[in-house]
């Protein structure tokens, strides 16, 4: 849920009526762009973007260079103002180079983002290969990789052999606004900035940082979510840069670079030769400019001349601009896509391993009105024989939008309700938002206030803004003690009416402030000694982190948490699930759910989904069915709807459509073992569950911009139907040596072709790669938990060599015991007409009641005889 406009319908909230009314007058079903800044309206972005490529005023003072085993430091000087910067360069384990630039002597400390890196990264030795007055060449240790530091002007080039992999400040756009005392002559927007009716007091003055990166040989860049845009990022020369600033955008528009609810400042660059990544660790408002082939003409140093080759090489130039903090950038050098994923995972961690049930179907609506409503929707699923695992409660379940409470009339006996669900082996999610109603009769508010845990306004008082409850304050989640307190509130004796099958949803954690600038918090609000400006994009991550910690703690550290968040940052993948926010019931929104989730997957966040059916507006039956079908093959599978839309439980559209939706959901449940083991792999390796084709076929140029189809893991290719009235889709099946099997008809198709697939309303084009083995459970029951002990069916799809392999992972599905090696992890191989299994984790132990009841071999002829052998020694 979210947004301001809806608020207007809550007529009792008189003070906000004005805000809503203003939006109403715009009269369109689209974002009111005027509520959000363009680069031109954001003083630092305007200032920085006014700098054009040219010779950098920065010079490296080579005489200041200090090199220890793990770290190189060097001063930079800006010849225009003589301000000195300190450059730190690290070689990190796993082929990562870290570049940090800060003021040598800042007037006061500048913010460095904590809690995102999982640990201080392990460094590797650096050594000087050569040095003269023009620069230094450092060895990066592996594969003849070198960093060349050019002194005048300052630039960095990372090379491998004779290839330049990446250049920093090659366009001279390094800019570092040093902290200063307020001068008499001030530029507009440096010490104060006004947007609409909001004034940002900017007591620290200008503090922006900016740096450019050139990527020779690269034509495709991806990532930097969250944007409602294509998978492949566009150049930004003729418009605004991509913006990263977590915002509650009401009815967002598609295909533009506007900021949305979350930010991950990670860009992945890919070419047929190599994949690299840039992780810009900064939590302040950030803008990213992308241009293509405009550089390459800048003067390279003598040492580089011979490698330059043809100036026709394609090149992408990227420029990052942040409002405050420091430059702290991690250059992930691949070379393969999966290397980049593991490099990024080594820094910020991997996808949290979700409870198995959370990969099932989720039924949500703003709002299920009361316990009776919940009961009858639950019964509806049984009546129509549609499986589901979670039913959700939005904000109306609370006592007057006081989170951690229940409406005393509508949800008078929540435990009874939860027990009813538990009896059916189902679960519930209730929303807990971070805005706290200012109400002296509200325990949570009183405690936070007493403990001094609220974010402060610029004058030192508790920050107050308007949100769902009316006047609300915002806990300072950047404080570890605040987060610990918050986590303790989820204990069963604190959060009354809860049981172990109740999980949590954090919405509005950008944070959303209805009457704040750009519907969020004032940048001069204070988190201890740091401004909100410094930490903004981090707030949502902290909220989800503290909440998940609460769910873990209430179970004594035994149970895996499930927490959905709307706002996120680098590192959020470690905590839980993310959804794409308040989309709309439109075909284009269905379409864009694919590139949006693919983009998140590339930067670590695998547990992604879009509201099935679309949040705003009411979907046509066809759209709803198609969305259920597409969503069945996306990681987070939840239907959701706005308060003002008509009901849309799956059985409300006639028996024919109920059957279509039932079939889509059932397909999802048959694939749960595969989803689950992919999440296990994502948890171990950091590779995305839902991934673009180029991740598996990195040399196939035809895949680089595909965003209407994708892979789940390596072995399932999905091309959902997302066009109204579609009679067919054309899917690209990659791999000239591959074959693909239609998972419904088992029909075999050759790879490296565009295949036209005629479709009807029941079609969901999905293909299994020849050479793979996928475990499924065909006994679909009313929830995933009910299927726990059921047997598996193995789908063995043979490749042209008549072999196949796959994995099977099994554990209890919900605890952390897998960390104590309580699981089964086996490699399945089919070769020479023998299907065999090898234990991938011999030291792990787990007992299951499940068995394998069926093996389906695709691409083989009928066997004359089948024998079964068991080897006790294999155990």
């Amino acid at each position, binding site marked *: 849920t979210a947004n301001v*406009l809806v608020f*207007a*319908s809550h007529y009792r909230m008189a003070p906000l009526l004005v805000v809503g009314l203003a939006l109403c007058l715009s009269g369109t079903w689209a974002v009111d762009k005027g509520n959000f800044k363009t680069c031109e309206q954001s003083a630092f972005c305007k200032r920085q973007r006014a700098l054009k490529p040219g010779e950098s005023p920065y010079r490296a003072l080579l005489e200041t260079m200090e090199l220890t085993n793990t770290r190189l430091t060097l001063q930079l000087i800006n010849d225009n103002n003589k301000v000195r910067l300190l450059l730190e360069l690290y070689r990190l384990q796993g082929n990562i180079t870290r570049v940090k630039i800060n003021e040598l002597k800042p007037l006061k400390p500048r913010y460095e983002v904590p809690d995102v890196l999982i640990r201080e990264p392990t460094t590797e030795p650096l050594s000087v290969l050569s040095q003269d007055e023009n620069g230094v060449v450092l060895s990066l240790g592996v594969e003849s990789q070198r960093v060349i530091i050019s002194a005048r002007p300052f630039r960095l080039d990372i090379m491998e052999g004779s290839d330049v992999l990446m250049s920093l400040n090659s366009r001279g756009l390094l800019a570092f606004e040093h902290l200063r005392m307020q001068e008499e002559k001030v530029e507009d927007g440096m010490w104060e900035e006004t947007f609409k009716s909001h004034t940002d007091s900017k007591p620290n003055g200008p503090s922006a940082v900016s740096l450019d990166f050139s990527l020779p040989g690269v034509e495709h860049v991806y990532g930097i979510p969250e944007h409602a845009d294509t998978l492949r990022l566009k150049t930004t020369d003729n418009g605004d840069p991509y913006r990263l600033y977590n915002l509650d955008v009401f009815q967002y528009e598609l295909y533009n670079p506007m900021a949305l609810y979350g930010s991950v400042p990670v860009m992945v660059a890919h070419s047929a030769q190599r994949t690299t990544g840039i992780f810009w660790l900064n939590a302040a408002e950030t803008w990213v400019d992308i241009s293509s082939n405009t550089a390459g003409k800048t003067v390279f140093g003598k040492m580089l001349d011979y490698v330059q080759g043809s100036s026709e090489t394609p090149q992408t130039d990227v420029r990052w601009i942040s409002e405050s903090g420091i430059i702290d950038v991690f250059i992930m050098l691949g070379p393969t896509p999966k290397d980049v994923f593991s490099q990024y995972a080594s820094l910020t961690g991997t996808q949290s391993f979700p409870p198995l049930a959370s990969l099932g179907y989720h039924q949500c609506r703003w709002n299920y*009105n009361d316990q009776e*409503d919940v009961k009858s929707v639950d019964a509806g699923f049984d009546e129509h*024989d549609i499986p589901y695992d979670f039913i959700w409660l939005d904000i109306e379940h609370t006592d007057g939008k006081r989170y951690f409470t229940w409406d005393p*009339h509508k949800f008078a006996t929540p435990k009874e309700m939860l027990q009813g669900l538990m*009896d*059916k*082996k189902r679960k519930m999610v209730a929303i807990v938002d971070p805005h706290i109603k200012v109400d002296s009769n509200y325990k949570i508010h009183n405690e936070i206030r007493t403990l001094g845990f609220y974010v402060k306004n610029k004058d030192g008082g508790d920050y107050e803004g308007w949100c769902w409850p009316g006047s609300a304050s915002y806990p300072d989640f950047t404080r570890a003690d605040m987060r610990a307190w918050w986590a303790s509130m989820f204990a069963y004796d604190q959060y009354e009416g809860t049981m172990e099958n109740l999980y949590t949803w954090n919405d509005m954690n950008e944070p959303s402030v209805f009457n704040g600038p750009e519907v969020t918090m004032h940048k001069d609000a204070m988190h201890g000694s740091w401004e909100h400006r410094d930490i903004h994009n981090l707030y949502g991550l902290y909220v989800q982190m503290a909440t998940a910690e609460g769910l873990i703690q209430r179970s004594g550290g035994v149970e895996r948490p499930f927490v959905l968040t709307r706002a996120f940052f680098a590192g959020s993948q470690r905590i839980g699930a993310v959804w794409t926010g308040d989309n709309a019931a439109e075909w284009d929104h269905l379409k864009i759910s694919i590139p949006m989730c693919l983009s998140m997957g590339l930067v670590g966040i695998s547990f992604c989904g879009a509201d099935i059916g679309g949040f705003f507006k009411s979907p046509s039956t066809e759209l709803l069915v198609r969305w259920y079908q597409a969503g069945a093959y996306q990681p987070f599978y939840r239907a959701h709807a706005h*308060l*003002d*839309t*008509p*009901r849309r439980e799956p059985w409300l559209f006639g028996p024919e459509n109920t059957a279509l939706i039932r079939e889509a959901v*059932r397909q999802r449940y048959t694939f749960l073992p595969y989803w689950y083991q992919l999440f296990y792999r994502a948890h171990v390796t950091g590779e995305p569950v839902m991934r673009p084709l180029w991740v598996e076929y990195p040399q196939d140029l035809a895949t680089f911009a595909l965003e209407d189809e994708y892979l789940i893991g390596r072995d399932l290719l999905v091309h959902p139907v997302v066009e109204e009235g579609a009679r067919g889709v054309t899917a690209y099946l990659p791999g000239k040596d591959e074959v693909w099997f239609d998972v419904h008809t088992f029909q075999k198709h050759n790879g490296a072709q565009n295949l036209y697939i005629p479709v009807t309303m029941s079609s969901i084009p999905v293909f299994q790669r020849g050479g793979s083995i996928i475990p499924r459970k*065909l*006994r*679909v*029951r*009313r929830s995933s938990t*009910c*299927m726990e002990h*059921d047997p598996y069916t193995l789908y063995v799809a043979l490749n042209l060599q008549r072999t196949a392999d796959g994995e099977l992972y*099994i554990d209890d599905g919900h605890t952390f015991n897998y960390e104590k090696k309580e699981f*089964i992890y*086996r490699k399945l191989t089919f070769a020479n007409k023998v*299907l065999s*299994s090898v*234990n991938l984790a011999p030291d*792990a*132990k*787990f*007992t*299951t009641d*499940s*068995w*394998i*009841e*069926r*093996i389906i071999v695709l691409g083989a002829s009928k066997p004359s005889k*089948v024998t*079964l052998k*068991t080897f*006790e020694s*294999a*155990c």
Partner: protein
Amino acid sequence: MSCQFLLLLLLSVGVSAVEVQRPRGVPLSKRQFYEEGKPFTCLDGSRNIPFDRVNDDYCDCQDGSDEPGTAACPNGSFHCTNAGFRPTFIPSSRINDGICDCCDTTDEYNSGATCQNTCRELGRKERESLQKMAEIAKEGFLLKQQLIHEAKMGLEDKKAKLGDVQGSKKDMEAKVEALRTVKESAEQPEREAKERHLKAWEDQKALIQKEKDSARMAEVFLELDDDADGFVSVPELLSHSELDPDADGSFTEAEAQGLLGGVDKVDTVAFESIWSNVKEKYMSESNADTPAPEETSREEINEPVSDNESDQYPDDDIPEDEDDDDEEDEDDDRDEHDYKIPPTARTEEKKDDDEGAMPPYDQETQNLIDAAQKARDEFDEAERALQEVDDQIRNLEKEISFDFGPSSEFAYLYSQCYELTTSEYIYRLCPFNRVTQKSKFGGSETNLGSWGKWAGPEDSIYSVMKYEHGTGCWQGPSRSTTVKLTCGKETVVMSTSEPSRCEYLMEFTSPAVCQEPPSLEISSHEHQEL
């Protein structure tokens, strides 16, 4: 041991759980298809399998018929005998899922779930409730017969009344026509007399006007004749710049001379002939500053023409007996009445007042007017009476032709209203008219929909009422209400809810929905196969 699952069982040759009488999960009616020892033919005829593969926890038949007692087939179904209660089928996916579905516990034979056999208790409760429902249905059905009878009587009454009214309408039409003639013949002399009177008055007014004009002319002459020599001269005229014929700011001697008819000065006699040149523009020296009268704003005339609601709901003309519902209608009438007054009439009257009132009519004229007025009043009254009769006919016809159910059993709800008070609102259902909601804490009434149609499923169309086009919702559709009718002895609104924003659901009991209980013995059949 973790390796146990590893047994790659193509076919797990489990022990088939065959009961003495029939395999688990098979209903009695299908027992003959499952003959122990003989090959089993899938019920869709697709395949023959050895009998030991029935209920062996592996799905062989496409239709799932070989696994009636296990969860192996995705499309199978399991039969619970449920002795003491109703037998039923459940999807086979609910076998051994740890959740008790069959009251006889037979679906959870291997899951570890501890289920209690609740069939007897359920059976008892169901019998009680069926009995209760049967009683209600019985009593309700009796009441319904009465309602049908009353509706029939009422209908006959109404038809008879309609006949009467239609008869009296003819007389009234004749009366109206007769009175129209009387009125018209009385109005002719009235009009002539009034015209005579008016003309006389206008003649008199003209005379007075002329006298006034002469007096003013003399007055002006004296004012203009500054030197009192009995002539108005060019210089004397020039001091009155407002008389400048082309109003160009310079009043020349030639222009002044032109005003005086081409001479330098005029005496009183000659002044009379040039008076018309001067009188319009001349400003008296004593009150030259009098501002020109401003045009009065007519904003007050632009009243709201009519209120939207009355346009939207043409059904409002259904007579309403409830007092508090009439308020709105009165408002509507008042608005309409205001609108019919031609706005200019008021201002014209005002103008007449300014110029002095017309003298009263002489007695003869007044008599004619009184006579004509009397004829008019009588005519209007007759016409109004006719109008009323027309309305009455229309309403009667509407009520007679209204769909009150197959036997008009719902007719008694017409013109009635039923209320339900919840913690926040008072809901009011006026069947065949509309549904409203009003906050207990004041505020205005919200229309939750006006009568739309019977909207039950095909086989029981009269079980659901639909009320539509209520007050619009913010950014949404207009409010609507679905009323579900169930059999009850009393006519009561049982509950209201709002499953979706602005889509209300009401449960309403009425004897009119009660069906004749097929047999009072129904509840005593314990082993009814469905």
